[in-house]
């Protein structure tokens, strides 16, 4: 017997296409597992069980009628709650949007539906994607499936935990400063931040519009590529969407499995994202991975990006500035919460202020106030203006590096998953955790995180980050698939097969004999 929930999205797609299994069976297996483990894990804010089964039934009917459907048709998926869904609440982890059902779908959600994937529900996140741990979700944190006392990363901790815990084979995330890649790293899963403009942001509740990018979350590089092909490409509803034609990311990932895929590939190790300040086990796994790559024929060299040390500072000016402006839309008038002041006259301005006090959590307030400060007359040039100049310098560092190498690598995060509460009282400590992932967002280039082992000191997952020049997302998938194959051959198993079991085995008895 094979557990349906343990299969990759690609394998599920194959079984669905050849009729060995129905989408209803696959969907029910995942819903059963969610019911069994998510009370503890809390990866989901909303589970749409009935709608998912009804959608699965319709996909099965189309297939039975002989329709040729896409590679992921009938495969379940979890959706980060930052994305608008017309049939499920979309809260972005905030009380100010509690229960809000948007009147439209985000473009990426529409594309999932058009490709006949099965939306299972909405995943937990730090409020408005502000955080690295899900501890800033207004609905309580998600737990890391590897150790429930630890954070699953953030802001997309719900999506990463859902795929790592086999609640869904695929999920959607959004990455403004690492919110897809850092959760992937600390949960032993795969996450990709595409090139800025490569995937539509229409219907993604905006945090920082010049940084936000939607992307795939999965357990394998190939699955991420398949999902990227579904959601990517030009969208006239997003004015920052690129009109370039894109190659198939799935084909790029398959190319990585060929013999010699790594031979002669020039890999740059970012000097500033390695060594000091990084956990010993993270550095150890990174060094070992580089040795494996070199043995497989890759040319490893060190490159310097001297301005990266200013990236966190620049990011925590640009992001709050853009967020303070974006979040002005939560005004108690058109949608979301309305709260009256407890005393005094009831005017629109006082209702707005009372609503935003009641609806926003502490981290959101902190960043709005910081952003308002950075944009104030008299401080604008010194802070926001300077941060935009740093952005130019970081882009130049990347340009110089990519003249010498094809890809850049670093650990995806400085440490493995930390414990709940460890960094909550010190905002700067939480912010510094993003040092590895922020540069890619500031430059708009694509980045991927994939598992590269367990840290010996704590047995927790460590992620490898790979970055490519803008619009060269396909290069990430070719390299990622090659590295994944290399590491799994070296280990003799997948990393996630080492994760502790979350539910009693009897839960799966109903699937016996399905395959």
């Amino acid at each position, binding site marked *: 017997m094979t557990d349906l929930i343990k299969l990759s999205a690609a394998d599920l797609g194959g079984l669905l296409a050849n009729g060995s299994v129905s989408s209803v069976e696959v969907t029910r297996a995942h819903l059963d597992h969610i019911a069994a483990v998510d009370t503890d894990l809390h990866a989901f804010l909303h589970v749409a069980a009935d709608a998912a089964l009804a959608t699965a039934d319709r996909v099965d009917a189309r297939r039975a009628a002989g329709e040729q459907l896409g590679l992921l048709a009938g495969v379940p998926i979890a959706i980060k709650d930052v994305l608008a869904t017309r049939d499920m609440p979309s809260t972005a982890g905030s009380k100010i949007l509690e229960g*809000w*059902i*948007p*009147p*439209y779908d985000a473009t990426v959600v529409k594309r999932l539906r058009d490709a006949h994937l099965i939306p299972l529900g909405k995943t937990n996140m730090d409020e408005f994607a502000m955080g690295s741990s899900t501890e800033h979700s207004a609905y309580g944190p998600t737990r890391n499936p590897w150790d429930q006392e630890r954070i699953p990363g953030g802001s997309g901790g719900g999506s990463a935990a859902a795929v790592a815990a086999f609640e869904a084979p695929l999920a959607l995330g959004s990455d403004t400063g690492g919110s897809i890649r850092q959760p992937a790293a600390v949960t032993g899963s795969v996450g990709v931040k595409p*090139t*800025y*403009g490569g995937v539509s942001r229409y219907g993604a509740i905006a945090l920082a519009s*010049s940084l936000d990018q939607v992307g795939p979350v999965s357990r394998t590089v190939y699955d991420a590529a398949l999902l990227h092909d579904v959601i990517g490409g030009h969208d*006239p509803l997003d*004015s920052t969407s*690129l009109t370039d034609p894109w190659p198939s990311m799935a084909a790029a990932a398959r190319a990585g499995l060929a013999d010699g895929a790594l031979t002669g590939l020039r890999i740059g190790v970012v000097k500033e994202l390695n060594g000091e300040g990084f956990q010993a086990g993270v550095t150890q796994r990174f060094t070992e991975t580089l040795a494996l790559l070199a043995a497989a024929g890759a040319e490893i060299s060190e490159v310097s990006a001297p*301005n990266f040390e*200013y990236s966190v*500072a*620049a990011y*925590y*000016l640009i992001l709050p500035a853009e967020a303070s402006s974006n979040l*002005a839309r939560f*005004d108690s*008038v*058109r*949608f*979301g*919460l*309305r709260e009256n*002041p407890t005393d005094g*006259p*009831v*005017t*629109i*301005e006082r*209702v707005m*202020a009372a609503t*935003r*006090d009641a609806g*926003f959590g502490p981290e959101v*307030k*902190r960043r*709005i*106030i*910081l952003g*308002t*400060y950075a944009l*104030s007359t008299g401080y604008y040039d010194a*802070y926001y203006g*300077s*941060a*935009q*100049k*740093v*952005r*130019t*310098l970081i*882009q130049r560092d990347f340009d110089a590096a990519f003249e010498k190498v094809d890809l850049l690598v670093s650990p995806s995060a400085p440490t493995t998953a930390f414990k709940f509460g460890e960094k909550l009282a010190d905002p*700067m400590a939480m912010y510094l955790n993003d040092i590895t992932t922020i540069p890619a967002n*500031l*430059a*708009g280039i694509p980045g991927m995180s994939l598992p590269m082992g367990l840290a010996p000191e704590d047995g927790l997952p460590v992620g490898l980050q790979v970055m490519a020049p*803008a619009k060269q997302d396909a290069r990430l998938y070719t390299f990622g698939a090659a590295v994944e194959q290399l590491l799994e051959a070296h280990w003799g198993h997948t990393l996630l097969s080492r994760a502790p079991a979350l539910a009693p085995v009897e839960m799966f008895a109903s699937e016996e004999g399905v395959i």
Partner: protein
Amino acid sequence: MSGITAEQVAHLASLARIDLSPEEIASLTIDLGQIVESVKKVQEVATPDVPATSHPMPLTNVFRDDIVVPSLTVEQALSGAPDRDGDKFRVPPILEED
């Protein structure tokens, strides 16, 4: 320290339309002071000769043809409104009255 005062934070909160309690203002004053002190670092390399970048992939004049396309119905647009009056959003008074 960067010299952020509680009065400044209270003013920023009024600009951002957030009612903050005295306790929130006190703790945000400390947080903001520390964060501003840390992010000030950008000024070390932001010299006058460096141009500013506002956007990673500069696109300009992204227009579409001026034709009517389907959009939200009035009912959809009002579906999340906290209060409505017929086909309009209903809001509290703009001006204070006696």
